[in-house]
């Protein structure tokens, strides 16, 4: 296990930011940590990176406990905090060299820095001050900083927030490419991001885990929860006739449009029935519940 979180709680004064959450991340997983703002995503990440201690429970990274082996944990992880704080008056290369030294890279520092500058596409900007860079490039500096020591685990707190759509795409590709053989814990409140990058999802709300599954598993859960097929017929038919069709659970009628809640995709079957009964089928539309819907349902 790369990351193990057991009954982790964090209490700020009166407020319970995390309430006994538990989850595990396998080596090589890209885990999307999903939740609305203030759900406890950043708090969990801050505990995992040893920035703040937990109130109770345990957390470990690569087998090292965050409270008793803090320095070992910090060697294993690369961390990109939320809002990506940087020393704006340092030069790109100067900053990365400093990070490399603090990570204890010693003589490899220079070579590694050059490699990372190349990898994240900072070659043209390398001689600028960090403060002069655009937000997208700053984010790349933050990512380079987190990746310098080739950590086993990457913890990225909202790595694409505040970027324009092109930069978001670039950033996602970068993370995908660089993190191919790494365990990544990535927080976001954007659903597409999870669908685009992750193989596992943990959804968290008000300090509690509301879903923890693989992306495929969540999709399977969804298909169980149902598919909505809307059909439009030229002439009205009786609702009861539609209800008799196999797999149809409920029917809602709006004029000549019918919304069928089904447990599976029965469009083919429907069109056959329509033709045998002589119904004139004007339109048929399939709506799948997206991750977004699940997210909204679970975190409301």
């Amino acid at each position, binding site marked *: 296990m790369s990351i193990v979180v057991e009954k982790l709680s964090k209490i700020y004064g009166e407020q319970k930011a995390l309430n006994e959450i538990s989850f595990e991340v396998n080596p090589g997983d890209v885990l999307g940590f999903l939740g609305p703002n203030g759900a406890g995503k950043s708090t969990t990440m801050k505990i995992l*990176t040893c920035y703040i201690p937990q109130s109770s429970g345990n957390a470990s990274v690569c087998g090292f406990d965050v409270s008793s082996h803090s320095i070992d944990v910090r*060697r294993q992880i690369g961390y990109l*905090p939320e809002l990506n*704080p940087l020393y704006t008056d*340092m030069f790109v290369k100067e900053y990365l060299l400093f990070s490399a030294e603090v*990570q204890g890279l010693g003589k490899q520092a220079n070579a590694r820095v050059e490699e990372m500058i190349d990898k994240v596409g900072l070659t043209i900007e390398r001689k600028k001050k960090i403060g002069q860079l655009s937000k997208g490039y700053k984010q790349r500096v933050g990512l380079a*900083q987190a990746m310098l020591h080739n950590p086993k685990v990457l913890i990225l707190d909202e790595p694409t927030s505040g970027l324009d759509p092109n930069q978001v795409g670039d950033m996602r590709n970068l993370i995908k490419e660089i993190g191919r053989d790494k365990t990544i814990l990535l927080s976001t409140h954007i659903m597409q991001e999870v669908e685009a990058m992750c193989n596992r999802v943990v959804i968290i709300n008000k300090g509690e885990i509301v879903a923890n599954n693989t992306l495929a598993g969540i999709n399977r859960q969804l298909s169980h929860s149902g598919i909505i097929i809307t059909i439009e017929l030229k002439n009205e038919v009786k609702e009861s006739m539609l209800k008799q069709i196999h797999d149809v659970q409920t029917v809602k009628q709006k004029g000549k449009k019918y919304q069928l809640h089904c447990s599976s995709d029965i469009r083919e079957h429907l069109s056959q029935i329509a033709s045998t009964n002589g119904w004139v089928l004007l339109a048929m539309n399939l709506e799948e519940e997206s991750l977004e819907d699940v997210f909204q349902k679970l975190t409301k």
Partner: protein
Amino acid sequence: MYSIFKKEIRSFLSSLIAYVVIIVFLIAIGLFMWVLPEYNVFEMGYANLDTLFSMAPIVFVFLISAITMRSFSEERKSGTIEILTTKPISDFQIILGKYFAGVVLVLFSLLPTLIYFYTVYQLGAVKGNLDVGATWGSYLGLFLLASCFVSIGIFASAITDNQIVSFIVSMFLCYSFYSIFSLLANFSLLGTLDNVIANIGIQAHYNSISRGVIDSRDVLYFLSLITAFIWATKTAFSARKW
């Protein structure tokens, strides 16, 4: 620790803080030594460095507070503290790195005043008629005093993310430790205890070491004060974890 130290020194240099501090210190002390009436060497008529050693602590109260006010405050405000403290280095290494960077900067502002030393040495009615031992003692005292001020300054910086608050707290603490205890002792209210109170302050030890006798008790006092404030800094810095 060395990487933090290097980063701090580079930031002193690139943000011009280093040059400003050194130049302002030299101008201020230079004015008192050679130009301003009542204080300058020519009017006093004694070829010694008393003006330097009596004015430098006051100038340091301001300058060192200015150097150290950003060391932790800025990191906290900009959030870079989160980057720093999630790297595999201990809080102690971060603090010492920043502390020694401050001390080295102060040392470099003191070094050019050796020219004054040479000048005054040459100016004596009989050339070289200067208490060289006392002067070196004073230099050591001034350096130790400045080192104390740096530890006080980084402590003040560790307790707040507001640089102005840090600056004012630092000035207040530096000045208090420098002179308030000896001023209190001057009231002579407590009899023999007055001496104890005077010795809590820096000035008593600074004056003692300035006579050219390097008493281990004085050195120990300075080192204890530095240790105490670095420890307090560590406590304040770790308070984020409470």
